[in-house]
């Protein structure tokens, strides 16, 4: 049995077509400087709820960015090394993550309801599509095992 949850948000960095991928979800804020290993894309912050997991190719859904503006250069470096997420979805809109996403051309949607952090689990299948160039629709496919 499947259930589809829908959320909307603001498009920060555009893309064409539909993005499809597996979610990697953190309820916390991420500081790209310090929390992540640029060589592998693995979250190394010992306090992170997604520590030890690589963001590579995932639809990274998290509360928002925090920390140094240098974090934007880490996001860029991840993209250059092929270790970046497929897309970024955040609740809060931090200028550091915005700059990183724009410079790296990583699709980003922000100002999404906080609820998405509660209902989406890591490895849930997610689709993101643009509604009108400004707003996006996020579909979370939940597997429901009765």
């Amino acid at each position, binding site marked *: 049995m499947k259930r589809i949850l829908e959320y909307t948000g603001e498009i920060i*960095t555009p893309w064409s077509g539909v993005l499809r991928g597996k979610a990697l979800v953190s309820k916390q804020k991420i500081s790209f400087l310090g929390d992540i290993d640029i060589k592998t894309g693995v979250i190394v912050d010992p306090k992170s709820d997604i520590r030890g997991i690589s963001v590579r190719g995932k639809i990274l859904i998290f509360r928002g960015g925090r920390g140094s503006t*240098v974090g934007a*250069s880490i996001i860029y470096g991840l993209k*250059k090394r092929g270790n970046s997420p497929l897309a970024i979805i955040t609740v809060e809109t931090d*200028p550091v993550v915005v700059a990183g996403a724009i410079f790296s*051309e990583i699709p980003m949607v922000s100002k999404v309801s906080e609820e998405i952090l509660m209902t989406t689990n890591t490895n849930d299948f997610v689709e993101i599509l643009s509604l009108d160039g400004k707003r996006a629709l996020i579909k979370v496919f939940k597997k429901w095992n009765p």
Partner: protein
Amino acid sequence: MESVTWLDKMEKLINSLARIWGTDEFISISKAHISGVSYKTAGDHMIELLEDIAESGVRVRVNATLNPAGMDLKYWSEMGIPKDFAEKQIRLVRAYEKLGIKLSLTCAPYFAANPPKLGETVAFSESSAVIIANSLLGARTNRHGNLEALAAAIIGKVPKAGMLLDENRVPTVKVFVEQDFPNEDYYGLLGIILGEKLSSDDVPLFFFKKQPLFNQLRLLGAALAASGSLALFHVASVTPEAIKNRNFQQELSDIEKITIELNELEEARERFFQEPERIDLIAIGCPHASFREIVVISKLLKGKKIRDDIRFWIFTSRVVRNSLEKRGILKELEKKNVHVFADTCMVVAPIESLGVKGVLTNSSKAAWYIPKFSKGEIRVGIWSIEKILLEFSERI
């Protein structure tokens, strides 16, 4: 990455900021000041990013200046900076230079020729440059991250929001200081305490008994920005906007009033700053020392010198250092074991790799940041310059 140009990306960043700040209006800037220049804080990946941006051919379109680097670009070896750090630092500075940015390498861009004037809109990053430009010059800037300031310098405009709007520049709290300060370091402590009590959107209006000097207010501003992320303050009858708006008497019916006592500031000194067991470095110049401040130190050392077992460093801009050299003051100071370094400061230079474990300074901002930037390895005490010179000098 070929599809979208760097110019497009910079434009997108400025537009995104406008949406984040809830406006669709923009305003042109005349100047920009860019941080993220020290290799210590910026790192290898910032070099990578900036080299890619510079390679694309994009250039700044307004007068843009740079914050301090991690070393004196000429005398890094004399500072004891390791060679591999120096190589990376030079690369980082060259990337900014390629973008058309001036290598001013100072946190006090307002001391250069043609500083921002009352009402002039600029895009500054670096918290002390922001608060000082806003408060002591009456210019208008928001607090920008370094990449935002870079984007603004390339595009030539910023969103019309935040501190650029009159309504956000009106005082939100009155602060009364009834007693005179014994020394200038109290201004920094005042900034530290208020930074804790107030929110970053607050705009304090200060009432002092005696009119404070520009450099004393710089210490206050730098500390307010460091501890509380404030962007603006006014001083009744002293700062340009306070004067222009007759101390805002019209607007201030029932805003909060705070009174600060000297003992609160002494207690803050105890609470926030642990005096080091041994002093490896005495560091003056956060924000960068002005020509006049350094001349005063030289005069206070008449007939004296700093003890040989002490490292006494003053940090300032290249322009100021060159002036001191031209007038023979630099040589005089060196004879007294006082060394003046340019292009850098005690916060962003890798002093922990120079074996420094204990620092003494007159700057609350430096005392606030050094432990954080050295992962808690360095302890910093705050003393006034007079007390420092008294304790660490000897007759010649």
